[in-house]
């Protein structure tokens, strides 16, 4: 299963990778929404882990694009963000998000959530 992690923090991307790869997941990375959409392997992603606050294109904009792309619209999107306000969560849900994880994440919890969509 391929997970596409989109986060402007390289540390977070690395931590996600370190948490998921030992479990057998392949992790793709992008720094922001714009970079994610132009990634050559985006169609191969099975699930998106998306930060909300990112430069150039934030997580919400990215999800809008994902949901409009017929190749990607059925792929689950989980927000992985420091944001925890209900208002933001509802916004993410309305955009078609499948879940919301507030950072800092715990690897077992992240794995458990991803397995729900495996």
């Amino acid at each position, binding site marked *: 299963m391929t997970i596409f992690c989109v*986060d402007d923090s390289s*540390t*977070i991307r*690395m*931590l996600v990778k370190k948490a998921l790869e030992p479990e057998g997941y392949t992790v793709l990375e992008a720094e922001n929404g714009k970079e994610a959409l132009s990634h050559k392997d985006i169609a191969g992603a099975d699930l998106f882990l998306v930060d909300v606050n990112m430069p150039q294109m934030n997580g919400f904009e990215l999800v809008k694009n994902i949901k409009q792309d017929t190749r990607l619209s059925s792929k689950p999107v989980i927000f992985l963000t420091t944001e925890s306000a209900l208002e933001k969560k509802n916004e993410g849900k309305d955009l078609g998000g499948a879940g919301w994880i507030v950072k*800092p*994440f715990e690897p077992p919890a992240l794995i458990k959530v991803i397995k729900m969509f495996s």
Partner: protein
Amino acid sequence: MMWMYILLLAMSVSLYVYPNGVVPALIAVVCGALAIKAIKEGRAKTRKSVSPTVTDAVHSGSGMEDEANRVTDPRLKDLEDTIAKNARDLQAFAGAREEIAVAVADFGQAISVVESLSDIVISKTENSSKDLSTSIFSISDNSKRVTEEIKELLIEICKGEDSLESDIKKLTKEVDKLDLVMKDFQIMSSEYGQNTDVLEKNVDGISEYSRAITDLADKTNILAINASIEAARAGEYGKGFRVIAGEVQKLAKQSKSISENINTSILKVGTQLVKSSKNHKEIMESGVKAIRQSQKNLLEVTTILTPQVALLGEGINESETLSSSVTADLNAIIVSLQYQDSIRQILGHEINLLNELRGIMENVLVSSGNGVPKTGDRERILDLAKKYFTVRDEWLAFGLNIDEGSMENQDESLKNVTIF
């Protein structure tokens, strides 16, 4: 009111000069706003106090009459003093407002400097977190690999067909088999001893027969001698009988000789057999003793090894526990490292808030008639900021030169070292 305005202004400027976080900045904004508000109110009051009375008075009469009025009417004199004072105040307020505008502009530059410093913090913490993460994951990977190898080794030793545990079980079976062999040997040894006794008795019996045959031969010989004597007495008639008696005597002697030879041979064989049997018995007993000792030794070895294997089994469990513990620690580290991302965002939020405050301050200044916001003096702000710089990267972030003395070491690892 003047003292208050000056105080407010002084507070604004002093707080701006020491921008140590969001709260002082907020206080600065509030003080600045209050000062500007007070200035505006002062201007309004001045206009109000001047408008109805003074203008009326000034425009009401001609020069001479005015002079006369001025001299005679003390109220007019007071009003003129008030106008003059208010004019001076207004001038002072205008100066203060100008200073506040400059301070707000400098505040904007200060935010830019703080932003640059925040970028350093973000960049440094991010790089540091990444390096730290890489090292931790490397340690963890190595630890996991070593633990797995130890575990595999322990499993190989403790479990499976070729394991030490299996070898000990085989050894225990062999010990049991040795026990059986030893018992068989004991039985054989015992039977061998009994057979030797039977052989000895049989040899003795044969000796007895041999002696009986010898006795019989002796008696036959005596009988033959007597027969010869009797044949001699019979003279010519006993001549033939004497020949027979002589032959019987010869046979008796031969029988005796054969019997003696048989007896000698049997005794020799018997003695040899008994001796050999005794030797064999001793060898068997010695073998049994050796087997018993081996069995004892093997039992001791299995007794020592069995708890050792059990301990190794516990080692497998411990290595599994250790592996779980490493994973749990790693998860905790992963959580901790993510706070760097939060710090980055919080710093960004602080900068955003400061920028918003600067915008508010500029708007207040514009609305109070100060015109277009000014651009702060970056060089002056940097001069102020430099007073607090202690980290090399702070200077480097603004392209400033820093005198670090001579640190020309040939050894790259000592590049940050100065030997005095």
